[in-house]
């Protein structure tokens, strides 16, 4: 019977092409607009580390200006100073911990046609890969000693390995970074979480880094940060000169994460942080009231306002717009169904029950929904393409629809059209057929 109703619906839609096109357009425009916004919001609210939400924490310490709180959501700087990071790394309480920041190298390999190129680089301690579940294709991470001593090892992203070595196992090969030889010790599988949860300070929707090098190389290569570096005082690292003055200074540029597997571990670590801050206070640092924060990934995303409030409002506005489109579709459907009421009367006389008439008309409106949904997806894809073009590469990862969102679009369209069809279908099924069977 469903098949019969669908064929009747298609025939009916073809019978009034302009009205049908209007109804399909109403649903398509509503679905297209709301799916464009909802897709952005959905992609922005992804949490690649959701499965580790109960054990991973971003660490913040309030080492900021005694006269003015840091300008962040929780009034603690997002990042740590280098000396604090080094001090925290000495703790053996966390199961794993990572100190890191963004950097960049010029890359080339000897005897290669490939022109040198600049590669985004992550300078990090060795636990980065296990802490954030980064998968290796070949090799693995460096030894513990490389976190403190200058060991010229490098881990390549899949994309970099494809570019440099055509995707083959390059472990043991030499890559030149800023002209210095580095030994490849690992190659990653494709890995590109969006938002880039482990580094939200520098564009949360940027791609993952192309190279990863050990944290012990700072002094040897005089590595600065390619990410945000924020300071509040000029009295900094007194007595130190040149690079040492930068490294030991009071500005924040190191991102810090720990893995704490249970409540006891977390409590112990909080005590450790408290102790560290007290100790620093004695040396004249940390002049603000004692404050630190351990934020799991989900909270970290909220704190960093990856999904801005404006986007939320826009999400609701787009649904309100869809509602307006649905109301339009209700009016059009009602007009159409009432015009076809005599046919419903004949069907009743020939044995159709009220339920049969109701179902037939609801299926007709669902067909409009399916068609509206398909056109809505096309409109949403066009909208997202427009956003990608306008954002010039900054939004490639978020302004993209996956299968789930496409299914959601069709689902939303069917839901909208069923809502739009309920009242007209009910009206037509309750009408007394004899009214329409009178002699004309």
């Amino acid at each position, binding site marked *: 019977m469903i098949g019969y109703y669908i064929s009747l619906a298609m025939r009916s839609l073809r019978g009034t092409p302009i009205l049908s096109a209007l109804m399909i357009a109403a649903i398509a425009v509503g679905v297209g607009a709301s799916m464009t916004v909802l897709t952005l919001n959905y992609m922005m609210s992804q949490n690649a580390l959701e499965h580790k939400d109960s054990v991973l924490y971003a660490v913040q310490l309030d080492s900021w200006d005694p006269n003015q709180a840091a300008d962040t959501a929780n009034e603690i700087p997002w990042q740590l100073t280098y000396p604090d990071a080094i001090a925290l790394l000495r703790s053996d309480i966390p199961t794993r911990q990572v100190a890191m920041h963004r950097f960049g190298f010029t890359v080339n390999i000897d005897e290669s046609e490939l022109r040198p190129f600049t590669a985004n680089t992550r300078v990090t301690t060795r636990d980065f890969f296990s802490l954030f579940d980064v998968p290796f294709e070949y090799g693995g991470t460096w030894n513990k000693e490389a976190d403190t001593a200058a060991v010229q090892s490098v881990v390549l992203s899949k994309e970099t390995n494809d570019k440099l070595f055509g995707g083959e196992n390059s472990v043991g090969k030499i890559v030149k970074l800023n002209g210095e030889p580095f030994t490849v010790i690992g190659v990653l599988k494709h890995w590109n979480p969006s938002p880039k949860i482990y580094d939200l300070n520098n564009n949360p929707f940027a791609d993952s880094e192309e190279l990863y090098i050990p944290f012990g190389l700072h002094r040897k290569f005089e590595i600065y940060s390619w990410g945000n570096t924020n300071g509040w005082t000029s009295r900094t690292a007194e007595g130190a000169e040149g690079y040492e003055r930068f490294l030991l200074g009071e500005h924040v540029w190191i991102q810090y994460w720990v893995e704490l597997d249970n409540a006891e571990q977390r409590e112990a670590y909080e005590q450790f942080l408290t102790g560290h801050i007290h100790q620093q206070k004695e040396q004249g640092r940390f002049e603000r009231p004692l404050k630190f924060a351990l934020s799991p990934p989900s909270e970290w995303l909220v704190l960093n306002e990856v999904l801005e409030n404006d986007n939320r409002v826009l999400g609701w506005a787009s649904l309100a717009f869809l509602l307006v489109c649905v109301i339009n579709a209700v009016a059009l459907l009602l007009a159409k169904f009432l015009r076809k009421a005599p046919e419903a009367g004949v069907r009743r006389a020939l044995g159709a*029950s009220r339920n049969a008439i109701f179902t037939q008309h609801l299926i007709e409106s669902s067909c409009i929904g399916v068609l509206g949904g398909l056109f809505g997806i096309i409109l949403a894809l066009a909208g997202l393409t427009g956003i990608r073009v306008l954002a010039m590469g900054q939004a490639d990862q978020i302004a993209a629809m996956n299968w789930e969102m496409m299914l959601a679009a069709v689902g939303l369209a069917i839901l909208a059209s069923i809502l739009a069809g309920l009242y007209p279908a009910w009206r037509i099924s309750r009408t007394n057929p004899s009214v329409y*069977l*009178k002699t004309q």
Partner: protein
Amino acid sequence: MLKMQNIRKSYRTDTIETHALRDFSLEVNEGEFVSVTGPSGSGKTTFLNIAGLLETPTGGQYLLDGQEVGNLSDSERSRLRNEKIGFIFQGFNLIPDLNLFDNIDVPLRYRGFNAKERRRRIEKSLEQVGLSARAKHLPAQLSGGQQQRVAIARALAGEPRFLLADEPTGNLDSLMARQVMELLEFINEWGTTIVMVTHDPELARRAQRNIQIVDGQVSDLRQTIAQPEAAIA
């Protein structure tokens, strides 16, 4: 077959109440061909609609095939209508955007027959009304008399035992009217009970029995001589 006792039907609008049928009692036996006449607005259509389970009476008792139908649900009434009753209207009431085949298909769909059985019945009933060659035509491509024959084919496809016709010849010229009447008489001979509302006294006389409705009541039961064959000749 059909037994109505003290049926009442009133229509209430904001201002007035119309009594379309009052203390309406009538019995129609299996196999009969009954014609119904009466002035316009006297309640003939209302009677047919109640008989065909399209409307519910305000009061009284209606037995169809011995079954009290007053308390049935809409879907039960619809099923009875689908299985036992065929309707023919003055305005033919074919569905304009369905071809003849699909028009006749409508009651069979609600009956739940499979595709093969539906096709068999559609072809058979088109043949009965002499329109087999036109199965793929739309109603608008046919003359009035042909359209009414399609409507009859549609009413017959489900093999109903009871055919209700509301002025089936009212929109037809006398030649076509006679053809339709002959078709109905033929159907009746094969055992289908027919109740036909008509304004045409000649056609009314050709039925086995004629009843007259005046002011919502059966006014005068007078037996006509049952001689349809003679009338055709």
